[in-house]
C-alpha cells in the first residue's frame, strides 16, 4: 500500500500540518499509515490533553494524604489502616449521544477498569448527568437510554451506584453529559502501577477479543483497507459487564501474585496507549505482534488492531519464567491470557504483524512530547449582558407558595427516584446513606471508617462566571461531604466544555480551572486526577461550561454518619452561615422568570472552610441529627427536602437577607442561593454544643426553629411566607420528574 500523506488524510486523523511536521521530526522519517494512526490517537485531545495540560498543571495535587496524584490510571488518598481510597471520574459524553445505552454503559465499564487496574476493589459509583429539557422525544430517549445503560453495567458487575446529580437545560439537548465517578479501596502497599519493567518480560493480553469498535478511522476511505471490509463500521462499542466482572475478579487475584509486574487497561486508544504508556513509565519499550492479538473479526489490519477501542481488555507484564502462575489464575475464571509481546530495552513501541515490522515509534514522542497549546482566550461577548440582573424588571413577585410548587416540580429539584431506583445502590452491603436521605456514604469494611462522596457542578453559574462557578462547585461538593460528617480529603474533576479553539470557550476553561485551583487550595483538598471533555458542541451551539467536581471525604467513625432526614419532632433547627439571598443564576430565576442571568453566589472560601470543619466536628461529637446544605432552590428547598422522607414538619424563621428592601425580599430569603450556608438539625440536647463549636470556628449560627408537626412552615423575619402540608409538597416533588419525562 503506497501512502500519500495529504491534507485530507491528516484531516481525517485530526492532525494539523504543523503536528505532522513534528511527527516527521520525532521519527526522523515519514510515518507509514499505521504509525500515523498511532500518533493521531495519542496526540488526540482525549489522550494528550494538548489544549488543557498547561492549565491543569496549576491545580494543587499534593497533600499529606495523597498516595497517588494525577498521571496514573486513578488517584489515591490515604484513609488510614494502611488503606487508600482510589478514585477518578470519567466522561462518556459523545458516545452517550450516539447510542445512549451502550455509550453510558461503556463509560461505567471504563472508569471501573481504571480503578481495579490500580489494585483497588471498586466499592461505589456516582454519576453526574446533564440533559436537555425533558419534554422532547430525543431527550427522553437519551435519558432513558443513559440511565438504563448505567444501571445495566453497574448492576451487573455488582458495584453500587450510590448517588449522583442530574440537571436539565436546553444547552445540553444535543450534547448530553455523562460523567461517572468510581471509588475503590486498596492497600497502600499493594497499589499497582502501569509499568513495563524488566527487559525480556513477556507482555500479555487478556479479556475480550479485539474488533473494529471505536476506530476513529471509521471515516477513512475504505479503499485504504482491503475492499472486503467496506461495510460502514459502527464506532459504537458494546459493553460486556459479565466479561468485566470476570476480569475484575481475576485481575484482583493476579495482583496478589508478585509474578505480576505491571498492568493497564485498554481504554481510549486501546493497545496503542497501553503499550506506549507502560513502556514510557518504566523507561523501557514494548514490542508486540498484532497477529497474536485475539480478534473477533477477520481481516483486521495492524492499523485497526492498534487503534481499536474494544472494551474489557487488559495488558499485563509478567515476570519471565512465572507466566504459568498468572495464566492459571485467568484460566480459573475462564479467561485466556495470551502472550503478544515482550518488554524491550529501547524506549520504543515496536509493532510487528506476523513478524513483519509495521511500526516503530519512540515512546517519549507519543506519551510526553505531544504538542501542547496555550490557546488564545477572550472575554465572551455575552458576559456583560448576562451578568446584569435588574430585579425591578422582573415585575410582580409571585406568591411564595407558587414559587415553592414550581421549584419542587422543576426536574432539577424534583426527586430523582425514577433514576436511582434503577440502580442497585445497596449491593456489597456498605451503603450507609440511601439516595434522597443525604450525602452518599459507604462504610469501609474491616475498619471503623466510612467514605462520603459528592459530585457537583452548576453549568449556569459557570456560564455567568466560570471562575466563581467553579469555586462554587468545589465548595458545594466539599460542603456536601461535610454535611455527612466527613472531612474532605481529595477531589477529582471532569471538565466539560465546548470547542477550545474558540477563544471565548478557552477563556471559560481557563477561568474555571483557576476557580477550582483557588477553592481546592483554600479548602486544602488536593486534586488527584480528572478528565477533560472538550468539543461538546453541536452546530456551533456549545454547552454551558460545566466543570464537575467529585469530592471524597473521610468519616473516622462510621456510626456517626449524618444524613439529611428529620426523624424526630422537637429538635432545634440551626442556620449556619449568612445567607446572601441573591437570585443571580438561581433555579428560581430560571423556573419563575425563564432567566439565566446575574452573578452567581460568591464563595467566601475561608468561611466555607470553617463551615466544613464545623459540620464534620459536630457530627463527630454526635450532636447532629441531620444536616443539609442549601444549593439549588435555596434554603426553602433545602428545608423542605429534609421533611419528605418521614413527613415530620418544621416551623422555622429565616432571616431576611441583608440588603435593600425590595419586593423580592421574601423570595430572596426563601429561594436565593448562597454558598457557605447549611441547615443543621441538632440532636436531642445537642444545640448548645453545635452553637459553641460554631462560635469557636467563627461560623455565624442561630436557632431558627424546630422540627415537628406535619407542615412546612417557613417564615421570613417572623412573617409566615409558606405554610403547607408536608405531604402535599412531597407529592409534588415525588411525581414531577416522571411526569415531565412522560413515564408516569
Amino acid at each position: 500500500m503506497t501512502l500519500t500523506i495529504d491534507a485530507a488524510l491528516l484531516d481525517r486523523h485530526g492532525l494539523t500540518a504543523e503536528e505532522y511536521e513534528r511527527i516527521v521530526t520525532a521519527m526522523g522519517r515519514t510515518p507509514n499509515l499505521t504509525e500515523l494512526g498511532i500518533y493521531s490517537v495519542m496526540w488526540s485531545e482525549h489522550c494528550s490533553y494538548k489544549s488543557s495540560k498547561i492549565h491543569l498543571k496549576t491545580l494543587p495535587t499534593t497533600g499529606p494524604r495523597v498516595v497517588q496524584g494525577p498521571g496514573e490510571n486513578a488517584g489515591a488518598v490515604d484513609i488510614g489502616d494502611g488503606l487508600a481510597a482510589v478514585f477518578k471520574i470519567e466522561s462518556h459524553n459523545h458516545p452517550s449521544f450516539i447510542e445512549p445505552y451502550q455509550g453510558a454503559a461503556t463509560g461505567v465499564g471504563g472508569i471501573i477498569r481504571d480503578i481495579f487496574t490500580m489494585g483497588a476493589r471498586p466499592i461505589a459509583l456516582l454519576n453526574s448527568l446533564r440533559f436537555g429539557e425533558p419534554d422532547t422525544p430525543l431527550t427522553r430517549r437519551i435519558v432513558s437510554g443513559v440511565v438504563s445503560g448505567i444501571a445495566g453495567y453497574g448492576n451487573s458487575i455488582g458495584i453500587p451506584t450510590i448517588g449522583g446529580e442530574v440537571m436539565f437545560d436546553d444547552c445540553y439537548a444535543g450534547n448530553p453529559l455523562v460523567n461517572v465517578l468510581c471509588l475503590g479501596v486498596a492497600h497502600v502497599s499493594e497499589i499497582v502501577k502501569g509499568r513495563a519493567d524488566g527487559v525480556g518480560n513477556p507482555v500479555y493480553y487478556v479479556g475480550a477479543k479485539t474488533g473494529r469498535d471505536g476506530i476513529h478511522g471509521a471515516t477513512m476511505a475504505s479503499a485504504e483497507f482491503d475492499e472486503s471490509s467496506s461495510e460502514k463500521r459502527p464506532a459504537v462499542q458494546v459493553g460486556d459487564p459479565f466479561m468485566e466482572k470476570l476480569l475484575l475478579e481475576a485481575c484482583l487475584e493476579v495482583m496478589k501474585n508478585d509474578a505480576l509486574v505491571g498492568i493497564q487497561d485498554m481504554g481510549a486508544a486501546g493497545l496503542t496507549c497501553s503499550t506506549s504508556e507502560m513502556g514510557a513509565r518504566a523507561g523501557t519499550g514494548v514490542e508486540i505482534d498484532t497477529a497474536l492479538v485475539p480478534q473477533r473479526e477477520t481481516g483486521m489490519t495492524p492499523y485497526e488492531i492498534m487503534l481499536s477501542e474494544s472494551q474489557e481488555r487488559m495488558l499485563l507484564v509478567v515476570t519471565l519464567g512465572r507466566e504459568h502462575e498468572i495464566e492459571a489464575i485467568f484460566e480459573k475464571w475462564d479467561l485466556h491470557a495470551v502472550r503478544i509481546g515482550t518488554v524491550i530495552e529501547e524506549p520504543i513501541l515496536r509493532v510487528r504483524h506476523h513478524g513483519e515490522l509495521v511500526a516503530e515509534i519512540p515512546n517519549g514522542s507519543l506519551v510526553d512530547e505531544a504538542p501542547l497549546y496555550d490557546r488564545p482566550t477572550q472575554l465572551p461577548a455575552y458576559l456583560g449582558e448576562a451578568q446584569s440582573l435588574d430585579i425591578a424588571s422582573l415585575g410582580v413577585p409571585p406568591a411564595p407558595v407558587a414559587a415553592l410548587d414550581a421549584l419542587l416540580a422543576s426536574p432539577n429539584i424534583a426527586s430523582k427516584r425514577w433514576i436511582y431506583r434503577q440502580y442497585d445502590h445497596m449491593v456489597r452491603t456498605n451503603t450507609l446513606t440511601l439516595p434522597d436521605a443525604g450525602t452518599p456514604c459507604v462504610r469501609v469494611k474491616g475498619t471503623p471508617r466510612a467514605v462520603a462522596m459528592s459530585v457537583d457542578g452548576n453549568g449556569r453559574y459557570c456560564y455567568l462566571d466560570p471562575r466563581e462557578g467553579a469555586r462554587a462547585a468545589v465548595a458545594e461538593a466539599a460542603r456536601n461531604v461535610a454535611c455527612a460528617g466527613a472531612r474532605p480529603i481529595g477531589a477529582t474533576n471532569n471538565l466539560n466544555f465546548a470547542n477550545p479553539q474558540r477563544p471565548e470557550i478557552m477563556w471559560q476553561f481557563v477561568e474555571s480551572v483557576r476557580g477550582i485551583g483557588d477553592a481546592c487550595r483554600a479548602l486544602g483538598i488536593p486534586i488527584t486526577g480528572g478528565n477533560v471533555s472538550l468539543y461538546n458542541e453541536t452546530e456551533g451551539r456549545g454547552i454551558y461550561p460545566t466543570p464537575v467536581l467529585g469530592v471524597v471525604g473521610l468519616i473516622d467513625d462510621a456510626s456517626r454518619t449524618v444524613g439529611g432526614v428529620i426523624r424526630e419532632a422537637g429538635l432545634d433547627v440551626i442556620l449556619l452561615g449568612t445567607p446572601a439571598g441573591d437570585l443571580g443564576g438561581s433555579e428560581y430565576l430560571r423556573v419563575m422568570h425563564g432567566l439565566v442571568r446575574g452573578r452567581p453566589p460568591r464563595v467566601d472560601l475561608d468561611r466555607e472552610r470553617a463551615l466544613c470543619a464545623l459540620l464534620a466536628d459536630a457530627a463527630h461529637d454526635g450532636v447532629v441529627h441531620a444536616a443539609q446544605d442549601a444549593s439549588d432552590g435555596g434554603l426553602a428547598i433545602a428545608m423542605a427536602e429534609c421533611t419528605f422522607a418521614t413527613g415530620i414538619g418544621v416551623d422555622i424563621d429565616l432571616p431576611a437577607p441583608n440588603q435593600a428592601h425590595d419586593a423580592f425580599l421574601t423570595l430572596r430569603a426563601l429561594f436565593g442561593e448562597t454558598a457557605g450556608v447549611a441547615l443543621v438539625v441538632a440532636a436531642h440536647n445537642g444545640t448548645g454544643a453545635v452553637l459553641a463549636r460554631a462560635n469557636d470556628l467563627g461560623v455565624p449560627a442561630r436557632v431558627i426553629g424546630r422540627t415537628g408537626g406535619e407542615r412546612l412552615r417557613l417564615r421570613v423575619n417572623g412573617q409566615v411566607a409558606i405554610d403547607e402540608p408536608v405531604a402535599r409538597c412531597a407529592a409534588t416533588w415525588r411525581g414531577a420528574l416522571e411526569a415531565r419525562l412522560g413515564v408516569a
Partner: protein
Amino acid sequence: MKFAVVVFPGSNCDHDAYHAAKHVLGQEAEFVWHKDTDLRGADVVILPGGFSYGDYLRTGAIARYSPVMQAVAAFSATGGPVLGICNGFQVLLEAGLLEGAMLRNARLKFNCEHVHLRVEQTTTPFTARCAPGSVLRIPVAHGEGNYFADPVTLQRLEANGQVIFRYCTAAGEIADAANPNGSLHNIAGICNATRNVVGLMPHPERACETALGSADGLVMFESAIDYVTAGARA
C-alpha cells in the same frame, strides 16, 4: 455450623451473604466455586444474588448447568436446606429445584428499593423463627422478578403452602400497589414440596444490620441456624 456460598461467574452478592453469615452471625462460612463438585460439608447452602453469566440469555439459564448444581441437587434431595436469593432463586427455577419461571418486571425496569414482605409460612428452615404473618422490611434489586407459574402449578403451590413470602404493604396487606414487579399472587418467595429449598427475590443478606437501614433479614439466617443446630433435618 457452616454455610456454603456458591460462586458462579457473575455472582455479585456472594460476599454479602458470606459477610452476613460469617461476620454478622459469627458462623462458619465458605465460598464454593461453581466448578466444584462437593459442598465441603456445609450445613446450609446459599445461592447468592448477582448476574451469573451476565444474566445473558435468561436469568439463571446458564448457571444451572454449572457442575456444582449437581451437588446442590443431591444435597437438597437429602433434605439439606438451600436458600436461593434473587439470582440464586432464578437459578433454582431454571434448574427445576423450584417450580415456575421469572419474567421481566412489569414496569420493565430494574428496581432497587426496600419493600415489605409478609411471611406466609413458618414451616421452612428459613422462616421457622418468624412470627406467622409477620412483616419484614427487606430490599429488592432485580429486573426480572416477576414470578410466573401456570394456573395448575400455582394452585398446587398455594394449596400446599409453598408460597412463603408475599409482597405487602407496611401493614401487611397484600395489594397491587405493594407489588414491585407484577409477580402472580404477589409472590416474593416459594419453597419446594419438601420445604427445604427456598427461593426469594428480596435480599435478606442486605438487611442484617441496622446501619444499612434494616435488620429484618437476620431472622432468616437465625432460622437456618436453629434448624441445623436443633438437628431438625431428618
